[in-house]
């Protein structure tokens, strides 16, 4: 008896809650760590990047004005959905990153738990970084964190899932919307994550995922005047590229998280830096009188 022929997945982009192919019609071959063919991934173009920014902007009011409790619920739901697809992620991370089963499982578990960790911050961060300010006068004065807007996230090249979650979740938990460029060589977990997001009550456009060359889309994102911030994690160690992107980002004074000299160990507890880097502090004054 012959073995059943598997139904293979087409890996596409994730933009505005939908899974389009690249408008350019291009794709590229993705191989495993040993060079064996895995799939064809969509090769995102500048136009795809612009579409993703438009989708992220459109989604911003709804996501940023959702209650913190609601955002926390949604992000926790992402963790639940990942858990349900754990086996798939283990396969994809394992083949992409060349990890054995148990190490891949550890990475996936950590990535799921990272969503849980960040989800919990949604309704706590304002209490930790906000303040009421004792001004010298009859005014009530308070400072609250607000999302900065649309954030371009260049996800790490090596850590295709844990690294990706570690840069995406903090952006989303603060109420921002994101355009993510995945690892070029290891894009499959990113697309799988997109499929999870699409089924996790994350509103369409809140997170958009582009696969392809960072060099194709990142300059568009870095110079885009409707992008408010950029995380350069994905060009870690590539100083020349990082400088160009940082320069492009100055055009509208994006908030920039610089690329580290080399990709960090994503298993460490993240701290608040990646959340607060994409938050603005708003201070409100009002008189106190009768």
């Amino acid at each position, binding site marked *: 008896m012959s073995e059943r022929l598997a139904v293979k997945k087409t890996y596409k982009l994730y933009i505005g809650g939908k899974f389009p192919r690249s408008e350019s019609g291009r794709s590229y071959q993705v191989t495993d760590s040993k060079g064996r063919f895995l799939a064809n991934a969509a090769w995102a173009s500048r136009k795809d990047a612009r579409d993703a920014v438009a989708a992220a902007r459109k989604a911003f009011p709804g996501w940023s004005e959702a209650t913190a409790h609601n955002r926390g619920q949604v992000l926790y739901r992402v963790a639940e959905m990942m858990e349900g697809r754990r086996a798939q992620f283990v396969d994809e991370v394992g083949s992409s990153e060349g990890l054995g089963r148990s190490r891949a499982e550890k990475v996936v578990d950590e990535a799921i738990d990272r969503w849980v960790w960040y989800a919990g911050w949604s309704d706590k961060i304002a209490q930790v970084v906000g*303040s009421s300010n004792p001004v010298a006068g009859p005014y009530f*004065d308070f400072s609250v964190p607000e999302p900065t807007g649309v954030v371009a996230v260049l996800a790490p090249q090596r850590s295709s899932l844990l690294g990706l979650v570690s840069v995406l979740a903090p952006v989303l938990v603060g109420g921002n919307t994101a355009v993510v460029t995945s690892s070029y060589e290891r894009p499959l977990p990113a697309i799988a994550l997109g499929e999870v997001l699409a089924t996790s009550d994350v509103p369409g456009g809140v997170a958009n995922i582009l696969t392809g060359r960072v060099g194709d889309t990142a300059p568009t994102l870095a110079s885009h005047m409707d992008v408010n911030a950029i995380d350069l994690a994905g060009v870690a160690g590539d100083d020349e590229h990082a400088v160009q992107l940082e*320069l492009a980002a100055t055009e509208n004074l994006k*908030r920039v*998280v610089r690329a580290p000299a080399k990709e960090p160990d994503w298993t460490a507890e993240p701290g608040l*830096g990646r959340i607060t*880097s994409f938050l603005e502090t*708003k201070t409100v004054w009002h008189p106190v009188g009768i």
Partner: protein
Amino acid sequence: MTKFEYAPAPESRAIVDIKSSYGLFIGGRFVDPTQGTSFKSVNPATEEVLAEIAEAGREDVDAAVSAARTAYTKTWSSLSGRDRGKYLFRIARIIQERSRELAVLESIDNGKPIRESRDADIPQVAAHFFYYAGWADKLNYAGFGTNPQPYGVAGQIIPWNFPLLMLAWKIAPALATGNTVVLKPAETTPLSALLFAEICQQAELPPGVVNIITGAGDTGQMLVEHPDVDKIAFTGSTEVGKAIARSVAGTSKKATLELGGKAANVVFDDAPLDQAVEGIVSGIFFNQGHVCCAGSRLLVQESVYDDVLARLKRRLTTLRVGDPLDKNTDVGAINSAEQLARIRELSDVGESEGAERWSPPCELPDRGFWFPPTVFTGVSQAHRIAREEIFGPVLSVLTFRTPAEAVEKANNTPYGLSAGVWTDKGSRILWMSQQLRAGVVWANTFNKFDPSSPFGGYKESGYGREGGRHGLEAYLKVGEAA
């Protein structure tokens, strides 16, 4: 009928001793610039030359940065937080002791009314040092982890609109967190910073912890680009802010930027109108409108437009424009000929674009740089005077019909520094406060500042906050992603 004319009430300038020339304050003493070049600081109200000011060149910037580095390494970084705090307390006290002198000097060099330098600027300067003095030995409790570390040498560049207050906003948190500084005041208003150098000497601040170098844009650029500067803090135009952001790109330097604004001041039909008018006036005519967070776009709900405009115009007829040292002056001199030219140019553009221009009758002095309080009505979002920062006493008036339209118009700008909202309805205040994309929202008030209150912009108004606990972050290696 009787007329109550206020007789001149000039503040005496005898208390201030302006030297004929000033050197650079490097390593705790005044030194001559290496190249020997200088420029003049003038009194904008009279065009009288006040002093010759040294212009710092490359070697001087090197010397100042080197002095700051030495002070950081040898003394300041090993000093306890408690002692750093005590130096700052000393400075705060000396500022209070010499407040009259500082206020007069500030008004002479800047052109701002003595009422404002005396009642707003200088008290805020002292308060700012006092506030951050208290943080110096409490940084472990500031929420940035235990033992947060300073950057090292901070290069600080400040504007001419609030010379000493901007100095305080820069130096107080930098020193409290353990950094040393090289500060460049604006070329048109260096005198109070140079007097501050003297205050550092009186406070026996260790040499090199504060260095003041004078000069124009070139000097500032040398400071920004200096390889041994770890941190840049700048307040000024968005254009220069972007240049600084480009300059530090690819370096390990951190920058915080407080830049321009085009704030909307939104008046609803249920606003406390008399107080709203006061807020509109202080929003745009405080400090001659030389305020980055000035409420330069008045958005009035159409149903009260006529009433608000009539009240506003009537109020403006009582504004007293003239001698900055007269204690009854409300609006002083424009800071420089260059700024006056820009205000004139944009106002002319406003007229040529079809907006209607109005000023109250007021006699302007013959000498000096003056511009009358000016209101443009019939302004639309497309007009340049509704989009560009004029940085002068010029108000653009627009209208709206619904809260949503007000928000849309208020946010329709690349800037996001401040905004005002006037309404008697509590829930609307909070809704507007959430909707307005600006770092500071003044509800039923405007242009209020406090050392404990974080200040800074969204979008192209810059990044980083000054004031409050948040203001510490700009000078500590914390809060940024790895």
